[in-house]
């Protein structure tokens, strides 16, 4: 390459961090734009992550250590993108103009708003919380009901906000089953006396060693898995909850009293830059990729690339791999441009 080219990565979660690290290692100038005060994305909220209980901090620290000369702009977002590849100009919220030969969008996801499943009572009942809130309790080693008691019976409700046309999310969020298994183990470790129930519809533990984690949770931790999706919860005067569901394996409608109900909230698209970047969305409202099989890091616009959960639910390792894969796609794109070659974007047949 003749002149040094600059790449702008938007979003400093695991995908964006991994991509930035890889891009700068190729000798490119990289600017990483992160909206929050800290990079790390959702990892900043997690305690230990599945499948191997690595502390989330360790992952962020590692990815940050790979950033080299990357220029990191925190508390910053993008307000405009003008020009076309390879001469984009990005306007930031602080008013700076940043030239970019290529752009990577790695703006991640949002949590499903559990209040929309009114029948579960999130925001209404004291002891109905989300998996995000549970992680914060685990971090503090302080799992308590709102009344300050140590919960004895705890249920984790799978598929909250996923696989549900009633909230317009037909897709599976992929990580919540394994996350539920992980959380159940962690609860049991912190509260050995507790009884833990996972109310699931299908157990989707898809990754390497995930199945083993599932088995361990049953064999060593005695977690109960009940095949039936939570239908509704109601509150008793003492703040405990009565859950209604069907045990579909014995075909019996059931009631279960619990002290704490944890909703395994799914992922929703964060496509706040869709208009600014002029990018189309898929029917799941995540960014559309150029091709679902062989052009997964390419957007529908030349020179704008996508990585991580911006294009659909992924685990951390997948997001990191996807970020690095996007970095390779960007390098290939820039090399072809620099040579004045026609860019070989994977052509759609």
């Amino acid at each position, binding site marked *: 390459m003749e002149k040094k080219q600059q790449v702008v990565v938007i979003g400093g979660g695991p995908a964006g961090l991994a991509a930035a690290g890889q891009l700068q290692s190729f000798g490119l100038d990289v600017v990483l734009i992160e909206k929050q005060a800290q990079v790390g994305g959702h990892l900043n909220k997690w305690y230990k992550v599945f499948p191997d209980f690595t502390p989330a901090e360790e992952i962020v620290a590692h990815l940050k250590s790979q950033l080299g000369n990357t220029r990191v702009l925190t508390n910053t977002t993008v307000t405009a993108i003008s020009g076309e590849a390879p001469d984009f100009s990005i306007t930031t919220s602080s008013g700076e103009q940043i030239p970019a030969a290529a752009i990577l969008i790695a703006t991640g996801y949002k949590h499903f708003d559990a209040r929309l499943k009114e029948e579960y009572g999130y925001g209404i009942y004291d002891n109905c919380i989300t998996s995000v809130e549970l992680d914060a309790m685990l971090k503090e080693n302080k799992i308590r009901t709102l009344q300050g008691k140590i919960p004895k019976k705890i249920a984790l409700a799978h598929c909250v906000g996923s696989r549900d046309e009633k909230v317009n999310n037909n897709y599976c969020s992929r990580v919540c089953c394994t996350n539920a298994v992980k959380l159940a183990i962690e609860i049991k470790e912190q509260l050995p006396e507790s009884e833990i129930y996972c109310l699931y519809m299908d157990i989707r533990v898809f990754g390497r060693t995930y199945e083993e984690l599932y088995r361990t949770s049953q064999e060593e931790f005695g977690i109960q898995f009940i095949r*039936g999706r939570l239908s*509704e919860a109601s509150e008793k005067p003492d703040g405990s909850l009565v859950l209604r569901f069907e045990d579909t394996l014995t075909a019996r409608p059931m009631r279960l009293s619990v002290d704490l109900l944890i909703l395994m909230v799914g992922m929703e698209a964060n496509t706040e830059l869709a208009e600014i970047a002029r990018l189309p969305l898929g029917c799941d409202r995540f960014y559309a990729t150029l091709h679902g099989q062989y052009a997964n890091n390419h957007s529908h616009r030349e020179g704008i690339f996508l990585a991580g959960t911006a294009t659909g639910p992924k685990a951390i390792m997948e997001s990191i791999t996807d970020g690095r894969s996007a970095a390779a796609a960007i390098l290939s794109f820039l090399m072809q441009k620099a040579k004045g070659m026609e860019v070989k974007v994977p052509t759609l047949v």
Partner: protein
Amino acid sequence: MGKLIEELKQDIQYQHGMNACLNCGICTAVCPAAEVYDYSPREVMNICHQEDEEALIELLKSDKIWYCGQCFSCTPRCPRGNSAARVILALRRLSIRYGYFAESEKGRQQLFAKRVFGENLLKRGLTLLATNITPQNFPELGEFWEYYFEHMKEMREWWGVPMDLENSPGSHRIIPEKDMEELRAIYKATGALELMEAIEKGMEKKLGSKEEVEKYWQTWLETGDSRNYQLKKEKEEDK
């Protein structure tokens, strides 16, 4: 594919109520009928989904499809947008059309629905009249009802909802003949009349004759419980 399944799939209630089922159990968990009967909307969805003619006939002959109270609790929560309540409606129509309803105890009670609600509607445009609720058949309503039953006419005058007065307010008014004609036309066009006839015919076929149907009906009127009528087969078994 079987003929009945084809026909079921033509029913608009079925089309609206049946997508693929996740077998999640949300419907059965909230279904009030599932709590007290051997009934599960999820099971009904599954049987239909199999598209197996024999299994469908089995279902149409069973008590199951009559347990549903049409409360529609199953419908707003289904993550696949199914409605067991609607599927049940389609199944009931099919069961009546082919006479399978008469094979089950709950199904045979359709005669009551037809003769009371159905005929009231055709004659008066109202499903239930206060005069239908006789103290003899509904002793649990107690002496207040008995008093009301006997003084209905004057009491309704006091309340300003007089009986049998054209276009008056209340549940005992006379609906003008012109409107009744429209109502009957709707019942005819939608096939409801045909279903009502099918109930009489289906009962006749099952019980053996029109006289037997009347006996069944009388048993019910007199004892308030259709199970007091013994089917021929049951009678033979008793011997």
